[in-house]
């Protein structure tokens, strides 16, 4: 059974600092997604990572995938307050279609 773990679960950081969220998964996968969720809201797709070594960047967020280590990272550069949200990674198994979500990382950026 595919398991997806994220750490940290909670992250409080000051504006302007850099930090990384980690997503580990237990079996081989052919796709990994990062989502953002604001309180009480739906899931906003941030990145889709399809292959080993994939790196994608949008603004202050950068995601990477290492399929050999079964690890994805979401790096935040020079955080700003409006990045405060919960971030989820989600993994799809080969031959499957359902998303298996990680535990989520609740990020709070302190001014």
């Amino acid at each position, binding site marked *: 059974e595919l398991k997806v773990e994220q750490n940290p679960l909670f992250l409080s950081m000051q504006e302007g600092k850099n930090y990384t969220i980690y997503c580990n998964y237990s079996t081989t996968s052919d796709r990994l997604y990062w989502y953002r969720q604001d309180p*009480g809201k739906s899931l906003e797709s941030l990145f889709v990572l399809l292959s080993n070594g994939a790196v994608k960047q949008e603004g202050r967020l950068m995601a990477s995938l290492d399929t050999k280590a079964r690890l994805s990272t979401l790096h935040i550069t020079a955080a700003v307050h409006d990045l405060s949200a919960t971030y989820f990674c989600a993994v799809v198994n080969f031959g499957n279609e*359902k998303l298996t*979500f*990680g535990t989520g990382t609740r990020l709070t950026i302190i001014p």
Partner: protein
Amino acid sequence: EPEVTQTPSHQVTQMGQEVILRCVPISNHLYFYWYRQILGQKVEFLVSFYNNEISEKSEIFDDQFSVERPDGSNFTLKIRSTKLEDSAMYFCASTTDRNNEQFFGPGTRLTVL
């Protein structure tokens, strides 16, 4: 831009009552999903649906749950006899192909009293 819509946004019901949550997927999408998120927890897969039948379901999706595409546009999730532990946010998602990104609706918050 096309989007997945869900109604109602919030549903309050008494334990033991039936509820139907409605979703309108993006019009050219063929694969449909329901997920749920208990407050403060991660998102969990419930069921996938294609070509008018369930293609996969999780352990959560027991005999109390059913899905239907009654009219070619709506996609519904029915819970026959709600329990307190069914209280959660329910998200519908759709996609053009099982290998493509799923697009999520805004969710229905179900509160069972």
